[in-house]
């Protein structure tokens, strides 16, 4: 071909906007403090394996300090504070998040490995939106449908994952604070930095000491938080396995619990779908954030008459995805967050091949350093294979086919999970019918992976329980009438 290729030059976002400290303490009672009984660990950039900073590991003593501080703040400051006053703090936090959005986006992409276009256009704006939205509720709780004077629960212990580190912190903190609770937040071990920057923002907003405490660490830190008797409510987002452990450990206690766990969502494409947009939706459903999304559309169910064409179009589209430096503004696919996750994705993908599915990836050079996995498509997948049942949590799509709507419903529901689903068709009545039959907390119609703070999000069955966002999400942070 004599036409020259339009090869985009590197367009990296500047790192200089982020001021990384060599070492971070725990954010307890409004200040950064050294851990009492924990050590330190390093957090690295998954795209370059460069060590970004040293972070404190909170031990049981640190958790106790944080919970005590949160209790005092709840009883003396935040609990008694009128809702309209709490709202002012939340509005302020939202505005500072917007003001410091570039800094937050760059830091998130550095620590997590996600492309800057996603942290810039999705994670950070949604973070601000969650604070804005819940700030609005803080003085209107009496009108939320939970009685004339709904009460907060108390001290909440919140454990969040590494896939949307900042956004998940916002999902947890904003409704809890709006409802009048205080918080001890435990960020994920591999992605603690944006939560620590958020702590600085909370300081900047003059949030009273102890209202939010952020204790970094690994799984043991989270376990200590969940187990602490001073915690009234536990909110966890993460793997189903850990979610089950938490539920077991809380059995018999008076603690409230909400869980947002894994998924194996079906993205169902009917033969009358707007196919060009369906292809985009499939790509967005599974390759957004490298597939590190609990509601990812990891199972494509496509109706047989269009299956061949859709797969062909998908392959062409995957060929145009740009994998590489997360800070490059033209990057579509970033790095896998950790070597452990990369191993898991590799193991499950290999099992797909071993079990007879056909594996395909576009020609795609992977950077030498860092953790990378090419966008991958499996065709000829049958429901009995592991890649059709287990959550891969990576950029791997399993393509299955169906013939009739009922078969699509059956196959989509044939999973232990129930977090999300997608339906693609130009027929409005079919959308409504499918939405009523699909056992999933979220059903997207002719779109996928769209989030809004006003829209409740959460799952069925092994995807957890409780909702985040919207009026329903407030319920998780208010005492219900049944609590007495």
């Amino acid at each position, binding site marked *: *071909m004599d*036409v*020259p*290729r*339009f*090869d*985009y*030059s*590197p*367009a990296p976002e500047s790192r200089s906007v982020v001021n990384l400290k060599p070492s971070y303490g725990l954010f307890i009672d409004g200040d950064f403090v050294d851990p009492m009984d924990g050590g330190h660990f390093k957090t690295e950039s998954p795209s370059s394996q460069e060590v970004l900073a040293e972070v404190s590991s909170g031990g049981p003593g640190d958790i106790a300090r944080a919970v005590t501080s949160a209790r005092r703040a709840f009883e003396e400051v935040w609990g008694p504070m009128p809702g309209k006053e709490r709202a002012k703090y939340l509005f302020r936090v939202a505005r500072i998040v917007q003001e410091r959005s570039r800094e937050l986006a760059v830091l998130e992409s550095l620590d997590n490995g996600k492309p800057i*276009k996603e942290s810039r*256009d999705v994670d950070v704006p949604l973070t601000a939106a969650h604070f804005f939205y819940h700030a609005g509720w803080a003085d209107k709780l009496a009108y939320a449908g939970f009685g004339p004077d709904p009460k907060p629960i108390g001290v909440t212990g919140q454990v969040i994952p590494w896939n949307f580190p900042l956004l998940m912190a916002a999902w947890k903190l904003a409704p809890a604070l709006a409802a009048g609770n205080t918080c001890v937040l435990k960020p994920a071990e591999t992605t603690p930095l944006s939560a620590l920057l958020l702590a600085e923002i909370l300081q900047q907003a003059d949030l009273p000491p102890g209202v939010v405490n952020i204790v970094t660490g690994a799984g043991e830190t989270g376990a200590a938080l969940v187990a602490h008797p001073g915690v009234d409510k536990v909110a966890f987002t993460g793997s189903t396995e850990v979610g089950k452990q938490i539920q077991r450990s809380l059995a018999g206690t008076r603690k409230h619990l909400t869980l947002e766990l894994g998924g194996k969502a079906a993205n169902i494409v009917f033969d*009358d*779908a*707007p*196919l*060009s*947009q369906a*292809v*985009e*939706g499939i790509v967005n459903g599974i390759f957004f954030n490298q597939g590190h999304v609990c509601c990812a559309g990891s199972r494509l169910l496509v109706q047989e*008459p*269009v299956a*061949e*064409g*859709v797969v*062909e*179009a998908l392959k062409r589209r995957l060929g*145009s995805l740009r994998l590489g430096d997360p800070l490059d*503004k*033209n990057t579509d696919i970033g790095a896998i967050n950790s070597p452990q996750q990369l191993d898991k994705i590799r193991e499950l993908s290999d099992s797909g091949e071993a079990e007879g599915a056909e594996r395909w990836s576009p020609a795609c050079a992977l950077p030498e350093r860092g953790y990378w996995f090419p966008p991958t498509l499996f065709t000829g997948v049958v429901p009995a294979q592991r890649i059709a049942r287990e959550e891969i949590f990576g950029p791997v799509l399993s393509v299955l086919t169906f013939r009739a709507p009922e078969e699509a419903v059956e196959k989509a529901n044939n999973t232990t999970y129930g977090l999300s689903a997608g339906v693609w068709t*130009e027929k409005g009545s079919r959308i409504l019918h499918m939405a009523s039959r699909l056992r999933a907390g979220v059903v997207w119609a*002719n*779109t996928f992976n769209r989030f809004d703070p006003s829209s409740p999000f959460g799952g069925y069955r092994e995807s957890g329980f409780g909702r985040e966002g919207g009026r329903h999400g407030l319920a998780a942070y208010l005492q219900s009438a049944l609590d007495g």
Partner: protein
Amino acid sequence: MNAQAARRLAAQSRPATLGRGPTELSELAASELSLRRFLHGLPGVDQVGAEARAASLATRSIKAGAKLWAIDTAISMIDLTTLEGSDTPGKVASLCGKARHPDPADPAVPAVAAVCVYSDLVPVAKSGLEGSTVKVAAVATAFPSGRASLSVKLADVADAVAAGADEVDMVIDRGAFLAGRYGLVLDEVRAVKEACGSARLKVILETGELATYDNVRRASWIAMIGGADFIKTSTGKVAPAATLPVALVMLEAVRDFADLSGSVIGVKVAGGIRTSKDAIRYLVLVNEVAGEEWLGPSLFRIGASSLLNDLLMQRSKQRRGAYAGSQDFSIE
């Protein structure tokens, strides 16, 4: 995709003999009924999704070497246009000078693709561009409204071709299209194509009047089946003119048509494209939707007038590191 649906539909009507080629396509469109069935069998366009995709491609960041390449490529794709009642031979002649050497101070700047004028000014443009690579394009067929009888439209085309136009930009009958008379629209395109002889035919859909992306997709297919060498968004006389989502739908159409028929059709966007940033966004769209094969003046054009000076200004800024003044570039 489209092509898949087309294959499926075609397979339903003529299972044994479907080959790949324009003949089969024109047979598919042999009757008003089969044409309608085909056009309405094309997958729909979801408005929200199409606009989101176009918006996300608009965030591509084109810098450094890629930007320089894109600016020169965009210059070479311009149909430098003047379509005013007040056009004079003098105005067209000065436009031709600009088209041949957009920046007299820098001979490395490529010539534009074509000069686009009303058909009565074709002789002026022809002599002004003699010896250059720049083509003469004439709008015809009762441009811009297209409200005239077929014989008047064909006479208009014949005039332009006789005067030496290398390219003819026709408008479709939007009234007939919106009334669902697809066969009439197709027949006109075919007749104009025949009247063009060896001149290349650009078919203007006037997407601003078609109202939906589904219509844009159907009109694109009618034009391609009718023999268009290019499908073009707009006359520039109706708002909205070219938009990124419309271009996205049309680029998908030419891509799918090439898959189905083997014929590669070009796309021209026109109207409201004034800045280098706009132009580069269209190039990104071409690159990522249709493919790099379309990234040249033989398959992608930008109809514009003021865009050229902005491209020249950005070009000199990229090379010299500082913006030139607006008086450093000629105004026609």
